[in-house]
């Protein structure tokens, strides 16, 4: 375009590998390529040209220096890693009463069971991890450990009563190099073991075998997890306590965590194996449906954790809540059963419109305060009217209609259960912020994904609709939300939401924040799903129209299934974003685990000002979570790319 670009381009040309080597980084995963002998590998990959040699030397030196500094920092006597160990419970559950931990374990157990079953049942195919990669991985880590042992400066000498000895310049006196090397026995063992394992795999197996033997990705992950859990059995991982006070001095993380975590591992593995077993039988499809539906129960589970033992007012439940729920379930169900009669014609639609009109009037009445009524009755009635409007699309034989009615009843049951539970106060005496730490992170992330998804689908449909008002409304919403930073929306919900609510209606800060998260991420989900909708070809619409499917049927049976399948990888991406965004809770004063690390721990008298350690721990947890999700999504993408149909 212009000559000025040329210089830049010429420089880039040197840097960018030539086209054939572009995917060189994937070469390790490409099993067809034979491994080069080590020396030749070095020559090709590190010293192929003068420029490359210079780059290797510069970056190699910089890397080694940075590594040394990092280790020196991490293993310095100034670090206080106890701050993390002692606060393990605070980081993960904050002040959640330890007598109630059973709830968390049960919840986790249920989730892991579902996860194991889903993984076992999934039709994902893939090669997994080759032994070659495992070998390289072992050798690299072994090498890194040994290099670290040599690079780290010797420990500071301590006097008999544990004081650091200082020299004339107030620098700590260091032990001799020999003593330091001898002190690091365990590390030597780990490094050498890793290196030896890697080398053994490399040397014993031939090149071809190395490349062609694969460990399935899930078994591999389970193995790594097994190793992590097993460390709980032979390493104490330090004492723990709450709020910085070591409440049970003798008790270590090992003592309290090894049994539950081992149980969790077995639950996951067992569920996975069962899933595998079932997937080979012909019941796989129906079990898959059941498992997928069970995931929808996640809100039940989380609320059970959050609420501990809700103090239910049984008199009110018996006199009001239960009859109302049953009324909507049975009465509404009967109405819907009638409305799904195959040849009802326009009567059904007119009935639906009438019902909808009443529902709207119901809200108008609320607006003018004409007659009072429980909000949940209004909401349920509006839902009933909406479903009734769409009912004729689901008409069919008796079994078909009954399924529809059952689905309605289930939705009503869940809705009324949740509303009743949320309104009930908790029986367990606990501080106000009873959920905190990592628990709140996970809770908000799950809540957000569950509630923003349907809204995102609706917004995406609205934005791609041919009806101008729907399109304009959705576009305004999506673009406004996407145009402003999340933190402002979060402020809005956590501080101003109560202003907008009718008298006497209050919403807790956490719930308000959850709502903000859901409404915010819905706009982003909508954009992802819109991408999927645009990938559905026009012919699909035309074919459905030509068959006489109604708009609702076309959307539900033809368009959405295809669009969502395309949008799965971006949706996983959105989940990762949400997971990371939960860190903003710390800003609006909810004590998530970033806030525990950043403000709570440094405020404890024992660990005054100790901040970096906790922050790095938080980094690690976030990194592991986000990285494993992104790897999972990459696999998924490859899998979908292969596409069985």
């Amino acid at each position, binding site marked *: 375009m212009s000559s000025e670009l040329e210089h830049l381009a010429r420089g880039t040309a040197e840097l960018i590998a030539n086209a054939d080597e572009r995917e060189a980084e994937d070469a390790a995963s490409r099993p067809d390529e034979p491994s080069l002998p080590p020396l030749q590998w070095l020559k090709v990959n590190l010293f192929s040209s003068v420029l490359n040699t210079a780059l290797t030397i510069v970056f190699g030196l910089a890397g080694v220096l940075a590594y040394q500094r990092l280790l020196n920092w991490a293993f310095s006597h100034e670090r206080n890693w106890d701050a993390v160990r002692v606060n393990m419970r605070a980081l993960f559950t904050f002040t959640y009463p330890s007598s109630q931990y059973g709830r968390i374990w049960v919840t986790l157990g249920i989730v892991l069971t579902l996860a194991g079953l889903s993984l076992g049942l999934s039709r994902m195919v893939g090669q997994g991890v080759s032994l070659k990669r495992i070998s390289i991985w072992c050798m690299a880590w072994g090498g890194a450990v040994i290099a670290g042992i040599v690079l780290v400066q010797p420990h500071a000498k301590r006097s008999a009563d544990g004081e650091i000895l200082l020299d004339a310049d107030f620098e700590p006196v260091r032990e001799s190099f020999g003593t330091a090397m001898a002190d690091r026995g365990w590390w030597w063992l780990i490094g050498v073991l890793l290196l030896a394992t890697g080398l053994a795999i490399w040397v014993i197996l031939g090149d071809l075998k190395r490349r062609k033997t694969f460990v399935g990705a899930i078994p591999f992950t389970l193995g790594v997890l097994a190793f992590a859990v097993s460390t709980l059995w032979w390493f104490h991982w330090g004492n723990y306590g709450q709020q910085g006070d070591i409440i049970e001095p003798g008790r270590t993380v090992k003592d309290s965590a090894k049994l539950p975590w081992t149980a969790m591992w077995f639950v996951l593995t067992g569920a996975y194996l069962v899933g595998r077993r079932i997937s080979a039988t012909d019941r796989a499809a129906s079990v898959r449906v059941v498992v997928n539906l069970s995931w929808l129960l996640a809100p039940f589970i989380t609320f059970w954790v959050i609420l501990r033992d809700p103090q239910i007012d049984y008199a009110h439940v018996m006199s009001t809540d239960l009859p109302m729920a049953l009324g909507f379930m049975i009465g509404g169900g009967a109405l819907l059963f009638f409305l799904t009669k195959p040849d009802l014609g326009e009567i059904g639609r007119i009935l639906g419109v009438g019902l909808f009109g009443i529902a709207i009037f119901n809200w108008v009445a609320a607006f003018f305060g004409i007659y009072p009524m429980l909000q949940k009755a209004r909401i349920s009635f509006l839902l009933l009217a909406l479903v009734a409007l769409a009912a004729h699309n689901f008409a069919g034989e008796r079994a078909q209609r009954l399924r529809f009615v059952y689905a309605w009843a289930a939705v009503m049951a869940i809705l009324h259960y949740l509303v009743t539970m949320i309104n009930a106060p908790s029986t367990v005496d606990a501080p106000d912020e009873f959920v905190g730490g990592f628990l709140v992170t996970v809770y908000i992330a799950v809540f957000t994904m569950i509630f923003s998804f349907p809204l995102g689908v609706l917004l995406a449909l609205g934005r791609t609709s041919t009806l101008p008002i729907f399109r304009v409304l959705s576009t305004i919403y999506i673009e406004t939300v996407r145009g402003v930073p999340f933190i402002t929306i979060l402020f809005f919900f956590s501080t*101003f939401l109560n202003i907008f609510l009718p008298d006497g209606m209050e919403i807790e800060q956490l719930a308000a924040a959850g709502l903000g998260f859901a409404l915010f991420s819905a706009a982003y989900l909508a954009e992802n799903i819109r991408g999927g909708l645009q990938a559905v070809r026009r012919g699909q619409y035309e074919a459905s129209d030509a068959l006489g499917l109604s708009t609702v049927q076309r959307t539900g049976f033809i368009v959405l299934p295809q669009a969502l399948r395309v949008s799965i990888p971006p949706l996983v991406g959105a989940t990762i974003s949400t997971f990371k965004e939960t*860190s903003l809770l710390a800003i609006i004063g909810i004590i998530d685990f970033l806030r525990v690390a950043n403000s709570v721990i440094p405020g404890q008298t024992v660990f005054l000002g100790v901040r970096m350690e906790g922050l790095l721990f938080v980094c690690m947890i976030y990194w592991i979570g986000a990285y494993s999700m992104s790897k999972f999504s990459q696999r998924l993408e490859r899998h979908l790319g292969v596409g069985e149909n």
Partner: protein
Amino acid sequence: MTDTQPSLQLAATAKPPFYRDATFVKWLVQVATLVVTLFAIGFLAREAGDSLRAKSIQTGFGFLDVDPAISLGEGIDTDPATGGRALWVGMVNTIRMAAAGIVLATILGTLIGIGRLSSNWLVAKLASGFIEYMRNIPLLVHIILFFVTIAVVFPDFGENVDPVTGEVTQGPWNGVIHVSNKGFSVPRVHIEDGFYQWLIIVVIGCFAARWISRQRRITRDQTGNETYPLISALGVVAAFGAIGWFIHPIFGFVGDLLFAPIRDLIDATPPNLVQLLLCVVAIIAAGLWIKGFFDARRTPGDSAKLTDDDWFRVIFAGFAAATACVVFLVLWPGLSSWLVNSSRDLFDVLANKFGEGRGNIGDDPPFGVSMPDIEKRGNFANMGPAGLNLTQGFAAVFFGVVLYTAAFVAEIVRGGILAVPKGQTEAALAVGLRRSTMLRRVILPQAFRVSLPPLGNQYLNLTKNTSLAIAVGYTDVVQVGQTIFNQTGRSLEVFIIWMLFYLACSLTISVVVNFFNVRLKIVER
């Protein structure tokens, strides 16, 4: 043969009842949704009004003109006289960070993205390690980490202060740059009175440069000689800037001769006239839209063929215009007087700015430089207002945002390069292009075209992400806003200002990115 009409006696078409008319039903559903939405918004607004009144919280934008009694950590004015000024300082801080961040993140990201594709194994691994580290950890955590690291790594500000003189003796270039755990202080370049006149000359220079570069490009295309159009254009702008440095007072007249009369004219305009004008504009806009709509559907030889659906659209356009008129005339009469006042103020400011710098030729340079200074507040030394102070908070947010975005930019750049099909390389080599020519003429342009839209998205994200500054106390617009609403209780108003500001930023970035996008497409065609 023309006589293809079958001689049919068809029964007259029966109009279906309204509830079975597809168009009617479609619009009924839409209008119902619209009404329900408006009703819901109205409901919430009414509740908000009630609660605010019940809690006797004051509302309105009056706080913009009142002394907020806050002092800001950094910015163009650390002691703003009004709430509006304070928010403006925050906005400038946000814009400053976003603009610098976008440039730096693009450069860094491109380098890292290319590094990931390098044939050097080590470079590729380091680049991908950086990317995986940055993007799998929340930005907020990065920012806090940087914040803490700066406090630990850089020398303590208090340490090197001479207890007697209060002089600070540290920094790579003492008196020019200070580096400490409170941040950095560097010389500040600020605009002086002559700036606005000078700007006019530069703008003229830009037009001249545009013309010259076009001429040179034409010459190049005709003769085949390299004429360096871009460099000559830059040269022209620089020349205008340099000459303008000395002669800019010649443009001092625009203040009195142009802006002052406009100000007076606006001042003399009665608000009612403005109301009418606004209505006329709304009606004309709707009219133009409807006319365009008719034109698009006009068929040759026939008048417009409008379906019922089209008629509904036309009705809605008219309806929107009518609503706008009602708003202008009845519901919000203050709007027009606000418009009058603020545009009067704007031109007043302009007139004054141009009036001030109207000295002799050679006076009043457009820019000035002030060196960092150290102040003692009480017993503690601190960075004074003279230098450009990049506080610890600024540095933390800036590095956090830049490195975080760079990781995403790197992935986009890499994706863009990989997205160019292999066939392109082969084709280019087959016609005998050299490798560097191929990269320049074939690969990079295509890669850039693929990367531009997602890059634009990242720029938007970067701008929005600067709002995390609130976690470390950098005074961006969100932080200032929050301070103000904590003090005045004007939460909704502040929220509206935030929203408008960020929407404006987003819009600007989208427009710029789109401009290049369109240009690129034309170039590529």
